[in-house]
């Protein structure tokens, strides 16, 4: 194949996979088709599911497969995609980085659209440097940490990172802006504007979500994403070269790659055009060995070389390339960090504590220690949740559980028969359950407690019962008792006082969400009583 064609093949592939990633991200939501299928609605026999393979990129990511296996001893669904990606890397090198990775594509685009460096500065920036070892350090650290019992790869894994950043920060930010504009236009008294506002909203809402979805710590996720993008101004594809643990994994495996860059030093005029265009700082120039473990397979050097001194060739016989320049210190430091991180993560005592009052895991979530071995902090469950209740934790789950999902009942509530979050979890940290199981077993995520001092009827401030009305279990976990209260002026009034039956409460949190006492609702849900934990029980018989 001619080099120009290879470049176009790469661009088409990058565009395709980025578009696919965005499509799957947008479609990770309550499906449209569900409210047109009567069979789904009328019987409740079938659970509503996202109609797209939302976890495809997560199945394709070997780091997610490996860490789930090392840490949680689980073969995740669709792991053969990841195995295939690894096997292909043995033959083709880091094709994933150059042809598939959507985060890599975004970095590539940022660098091409707004190049920060030119000429000599760019050539210098594209020289291989010691800092590229950091990614091996990070790879070793996350793998060892997973083995020891804490899976933190999701913080750095490019697929998780991109999904989290787009779904929890970029899309809500853009969407809320559009939505606010639509609201302003729709509020106009001029009819055409009015209709325009509605129409724009109809188009924007399926993509960005109805209402104003927002996530706690979304600002932090967004800010870090911007920082990562801005790193491209220091060096092209800074993230891929220096930090990406997945890139490091592929780098290690590309040693035996059969796609090789062959140099003809005698033809080289030292024009440095290859170094100008190199995305991976993989030493394409003469005089040094090509670094297969750094090469992102962008084929730029091949296409730019005016003297045909560089050619990519496919060699059937296994020829060993230059090994990855990991550095003994990077590996040792990685080992040390990997062993330490799980223990450092326990320093705040959160793992050994029974639970944090604010930490409520999604329905179907496995026991906390297993959860931290499996959760990728990718944000799929948060994106798919129709009520926006699932949020990335800041401190609720302790240091070790940073950005893992927690339910914030003041932002949403868990719908009684909804099981979407478990159906999209790529590693099974939230098990896929059916609506029937959720209601019938039942699966409790916590239990509700009344704050009698704040509750309107209990505090003598009038009738209410909103919590009882919304309680979804049958019979209701919140029940009412009539009581006569004496008001300040001495008048007797009969009110209905709410009580919670802990045996029936599933902790869905709709009572907390709908309570008219704002700020700190008069009824609140805590994780106590959650079925996933043996230790976190209240009642003797359940």
């Amino acid at each position, binding site marked *: 194949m001619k080099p120009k064609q290879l470049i176009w093949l790469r661009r088409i592939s990058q565009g395709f996979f980025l578009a696919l990633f965005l499509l799957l991200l947008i479609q990770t939501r309550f499906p449209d088709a569900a409210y047109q299928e009567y069979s789904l*609605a009328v019987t409740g026999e079938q659970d509503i599911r996202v109609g797209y393979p939302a976890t495809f990129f997560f199945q394709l990511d070997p780091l997610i497969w490996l860490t789930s296996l090392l840490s949680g001893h689980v073969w995740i669904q669709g792991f053969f995609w990841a195995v295939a990606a690894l096997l292909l890397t043995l033959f083709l090198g880091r094709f994933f980085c150059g042809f598939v990775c959507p985060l890599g594509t975004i970095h590539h685009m940022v660098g091409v659209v707004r190049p920060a460096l030119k000429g000599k500065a760019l050539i210098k920036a594209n020289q291989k440097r010691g800092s590229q070892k950091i990614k091996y350090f990070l790879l070793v650290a996350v793998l060892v940490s997973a083995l020891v019992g804490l899976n933190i790869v999701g913080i750095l894994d490019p697929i998780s990172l991109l999904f989290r950043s787009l779904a929890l920060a970029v899309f809500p930010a853009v969407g809320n802006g559009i939505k606010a504009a639509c609201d302003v236009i729709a509020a106009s008294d001029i009819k055409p504007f009015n209709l325009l506002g509605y129409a724009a909203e109809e188009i924007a809402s399926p993509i960005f979500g109805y209402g104003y979805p927002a996530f706690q710590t979304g600002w932090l996720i967004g800010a870090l994403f911007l920082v990562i993008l801005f790193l491209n101004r220091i060096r092209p594809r800074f993230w891929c070269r220096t930090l990406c643990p997945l890139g490091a994994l592929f780098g290690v495996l590309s040693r035996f790659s059969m796609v090789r860059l062959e140099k003809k030093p005698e033809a080289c005029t030292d024009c440095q055009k290859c170094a100008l265009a190199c995305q991976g700082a993989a030493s394409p120039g003469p005089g040094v060995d090509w670094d297969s473990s750094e090469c992102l397979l962008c084929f730029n050097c091949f296409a730019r070389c005016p003297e045909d001194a560089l050619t990519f060739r496919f060699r059937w016989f296994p020829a060993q390339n230059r090994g990855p320049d990991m550095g003994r210190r990077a590996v040792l430091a990685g080992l040390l960090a990997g062993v330490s991180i799980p223990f450092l993560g326990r320093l705040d005592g959160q793992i050994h504590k029974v639970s944090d009052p604010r930490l409520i895991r999604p329905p179907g979530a496995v026991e906390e220690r297993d959860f931290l071995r499996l959760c990728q902090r990718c944000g799929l469950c948060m994106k798919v949740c129709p009520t926006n209740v699932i949020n990335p934790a800041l401190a609720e789950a302790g240091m070790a559980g940073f950005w893992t999902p927690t339910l914030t009942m003041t932002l949403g509530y868990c719908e009684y*028969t909804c099981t979407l979050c478990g159906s999209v979890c790529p590693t099974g940290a939230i098990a896929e359950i059916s609506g029937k199981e959720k209601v019938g077993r039942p699966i409790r995520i916590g239990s509700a407690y009344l704050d009698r001092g704040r509750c309107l009827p209990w505090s003598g401030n009038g009738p209410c019962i909103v919590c009882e009305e919304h309680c979804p279990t049958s019979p209701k976990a919140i029940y009412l008792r009539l009581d006569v209260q004496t008001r300040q002026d001495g008048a007797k009034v009969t009110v209905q006082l709410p009580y919670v039956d802990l045996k029936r409460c599933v902790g869905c949190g709709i009572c907390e969400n709908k309570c*008219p006492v704002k700020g700190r609702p008069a009824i609140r849900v805590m994780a106590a009583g959650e079925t996933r934990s043996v230790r976190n029980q209240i009642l003797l018989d359940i």
Partner: protein
Amino acid sequence: MDDPITRREAIKKGLCLSGSLALACAAGWPVHAPSEAWALKKEEGFLIEGVGQAPGYSVQELTEKVFDAAGGMKRFVSKGDVVVVKPNISWARAPNLAASTNPEVLEAVIHLAFNAGAKKVRIADNTIHNAERCFALTGAGMVAKKTGADLIHPRSSLMRDMKMQGHRLDIWPVFVPLIEADKVINLPVAKVHGLCELTLGMKNWIGGVGGRRNALHQDIHQSIVDLARFFRPTVTLIDAIRIMVKNGPSGGSEADVAAMNRLILSNDAVAADARAAGLFHVAPASVGYMVLAEKQGLGSLDMSAVTLKEVIL
């Protein structure tokens, strides 16, 4: 009309025209004008109760028969009307749990409205649970797809502050599609309720507003009456095919449901509610908002005030 009309002629013609119009109006004006000359002509109240007794009767047919007994849907819907149907689809529950309006009734009503010449039929409810899940699980989404009615997604741009001039509610955000309709059909399901005993037709208007709805419970009866006065539907059809007899208003189990196989159609919102209360063996006079509604002139609790008809299938 080849010659262009002069200004003088135009004025003359205009005066003639307005003069004769004024005369015509004066002639048509009743000599003994009623005290409220601009009040709408008081429509005669009717109440039709449809009962499906035959095993395996068609709900759609029952709905059609009930409307026929009232003079057909054409009595309520004119050609080119934008009709909004307000079902109760607030809870994301399957239809067999009777937490939401029966989709078969909803479908039949929409068909009737289209057949009567409606330009557009919209399904509008400001749901309590997530709207998309409500559309899916109650079957309303499927009905919309089947009939071609528009399913209105409740959202902030469709809530507008309006003056209600109620005894309790003054300015409150209202779900706009209900206001921008030519005709509104109230299509609630009959259920029990922890606070106001029953949720029927008038209570259904809680789903027509936004804002701090959960605070309305602090004076629920007057709030319901204020809303019922504000919305005043063209007609109310209470779905009592299945009713929720306990654990209301959300239910969640078939044990909470009783089959009544009834539909109650009335242009008197209070009479419709009062009639439906009978299905629960509740005396209308013991339900706060019904008593208030009658007192404040919204309709009649007394069945003798309306023309009663029964349709049996």
